[in-house]
């Protein structure tokens, strides 16, 4: 039995070697892609284009502009002379925000009872940067307010500690986006790789006609499944290690928990995804169909990983549904082990969930695929 499985494994690897784009994609492609994507997306939102229409042209207004630039959110502000330029830039989507400083800004700031106003225009067509811009302007306004209040109330600045809330970020002291985004992106690529390759396992042989020959050989269906799965798992786990190494060294993502535990659970997760892929593989008649199904299934999973939006905010039904998604648990586990150093004592609900799902999906897949092959 081992020998027969082995012969299949060898055959699958030879396929991969002749069609070398596949493993290249899985191993190097995944890592390179992750590097690029992580590089592009792991920065906080900065450098947003900003326009300033300064009617005041005073020391106060210049200080305000410098203050805006110092928030780090904006690129050096572009000074313009009339409102029309701002309108057109907003329509063209050239800027995310614009600030209009009224002519009396300076006077109002200096006057003991003055109420300076500031007009902010945000481009709502890109809500994420717009929100970020709003946040930055709000922060700056708060600072200025405090300063003026202190001044006007005649408080002594050395006694005053400020009203800012101090912030501590645990597990991610520098609030690096990379720690958050890269594990999720890794998860996405890993999932697609496994699903895609598992989905091709049988759909490819069926489309090319070799499946029939495989089925008359003295393989049991179990042996075929195992033989087809081993190469996928080997490559996927290698891919995982490579990608993990990459985000660890290039993006300083720590591995605070047990590496061993992480690998064991990664393997478990891969097996679950593999099971799903194999089901897709036997229900698809062509590789094209298999691919489209992978897209659907993969994206559904990805939505529930909490990458772009926290699952807690979803409607109750979807939150409940998220618990049925292996990727949801896996990503939680991976983040916790990497960033929090959590162990089994903490992770057990998710590990159990993953195991249970794995068992259900795996058993179903095995029975389904075997039936389809027999």
């Amino acid at each position, binding site marked *: 039995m081992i020998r027969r499985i082995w*012969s299949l494994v060898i*055959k699958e690897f030879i396929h991969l070697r002749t069609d070398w784009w596949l493993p290249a994609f899985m191993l190097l492609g995944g890592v390179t892609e992750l590097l690029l994507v992580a590089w592009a997306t792991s920065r906080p939102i900065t450098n947003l284009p900003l326009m300033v229409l300064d009617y005041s042209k005073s020391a106060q207004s210049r200080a305000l502009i410098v203050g805006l630039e110092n928030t780090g959110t904006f690129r050096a502000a572009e000074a313009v002379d009339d409102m029309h330029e701002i309108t057109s830039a907003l329509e063209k989507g050239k800027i995310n925000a614009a600030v209009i400083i009224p002519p009396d800004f300076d006077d109002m700031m200096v006057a003991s009872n003055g109420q300076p106003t500031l007009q902010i225009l945000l481009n709502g067509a890109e809500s994420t940067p717009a929100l970020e811009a709003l946040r930055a302007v709000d922060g700056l306004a708060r600072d200025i307010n405090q300063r003026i209040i202190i001044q006007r109330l005649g408080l002594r600045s050395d006694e005053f500690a400020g009203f800012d809330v101090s912030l501590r970020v645990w597990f991610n002291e520098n609030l690096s986006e990379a720690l958050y985004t890269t594990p999720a992106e890794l998860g996405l690529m890993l999932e697609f790789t496994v699903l895609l390759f598992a989905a091709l396992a049988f759909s490819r042989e069926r489309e090319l006609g070799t499946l029939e020959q495989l089925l*008359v050989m003295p393989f049991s269906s179990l042996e075929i499944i195992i033989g087809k799965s081993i190469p996928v798992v080997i490559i996927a786990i290698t891919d995982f290690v490579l990608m993990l190494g990459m985000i660890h060294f290039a993006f300083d993502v720590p591995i605070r928990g047990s590496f061993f535990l992480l690998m064991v659970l990664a393997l478990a997760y891969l097996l679950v995804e593999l099971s799903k892929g194999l089901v897709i593989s036997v229900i698809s008649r062509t590789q094209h169909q298999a691919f489209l199904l992978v897209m659907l299934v993969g994206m559904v999973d990805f939505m529930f990983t909490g990458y772009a939006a926290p699952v807690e905010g979803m409607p109750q039904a979807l939150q409940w549904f998220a618990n049925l998604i292996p990727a949801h648990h896996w990503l939680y586990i991976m983040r916790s082990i990497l960033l929090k150093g959590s162990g089994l004592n903490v992770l057990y609900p998710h590990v159990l969930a993953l195991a249970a799902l794995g068992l259900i999906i795996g058993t179903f897949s095995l029975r389904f695929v075997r039936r389809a092959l027999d």
Partner: protein
Amino acid sequence: MDYQPAILAKDLTKRFGDFTAVDHINFNVQHGEIFGFLGPNGSGKTTTIRMLLGLMKPGEGSVEVLGLKVEKDTSKIRPRVGYMSQRFSLYNDLTVLQNLNFYGQAYGLENSLLQKRIAEALHMAGLERHENTQTRDLSGGWRQRLALGAAILHRPEVLFLDEPTAGVDPLSRRAFWDLLYKLVSTPLQPETNQASLESEMREQRGVTVFITTHYMDEAEHSHRLAFIQHGKIIASGSPIEIKTQKMPGDVLEISPSDAAGAVKVLRSAQNDGKLPLNEIVLYGSLVHVIAPDILRHEQAITVILQNSGIQPGVMTVIEPSLEDVFIACMKS
């Protein structure tokens, strides 16, 4: 132990929707026999083979291979049979050697034995210098030979061959049939550990071969034949039996100066009712005319041909070829 044929099909039927691909066919194949299964494209041959192999569930009826029920004991049967499918039994992106290795290992051949068998297969297929060629780069004939080599690597007791010689050159086809004869006439040796007891218990018989082919000259060398058409067996028996029973007349072989012209002339005469012939066939550079008691018409044929300026050449009554019989059967 009760006597068991190597393959036994009872009332085998398969329907696809309204279409009955295989319609209550019955046959058996004895151990050590070459059984030719002939029929036009789309007559149900491949469907039958798939059912015999357990790749497809029969709609009705049952199949036994080596005394075992195919549906129940698939896993016991598989190691003991070999199958070469019509077109796709090899992996195109694997090399010759890799394909053979895969087959051998899949059937559990031990290393030294595997190497020996692979060497034999390569020799038989004439691919010794091409071990490392990718299969997709082989010519059609070579691919077929390699596929056959792979199918017999594990010395199966029953061999299912679906058009094994399609596209193979005559020289290799003969080599292939020599090999088949050798396999059939050499008693099976329990080389592998599995099933050794059983093989020893069986008499000294060789491999059983179930083969489909479109080369009727090849089919002539089968021990027994069945003709299938529209899913039904319309004739079966040894080639001689079939020829004598199913032939609608005698065959006169003519070697005229212009064979194609001769066929035209004779056909028009046949259509005009001047010549009561059953069949006029162009056979390479020869013409076969078929009718009961053909010698009666020899004179008339000569005259008709000469009138059209065609030299009739030598005319001899020959034993009908299987191809003549096949075509006659299919047309009736």
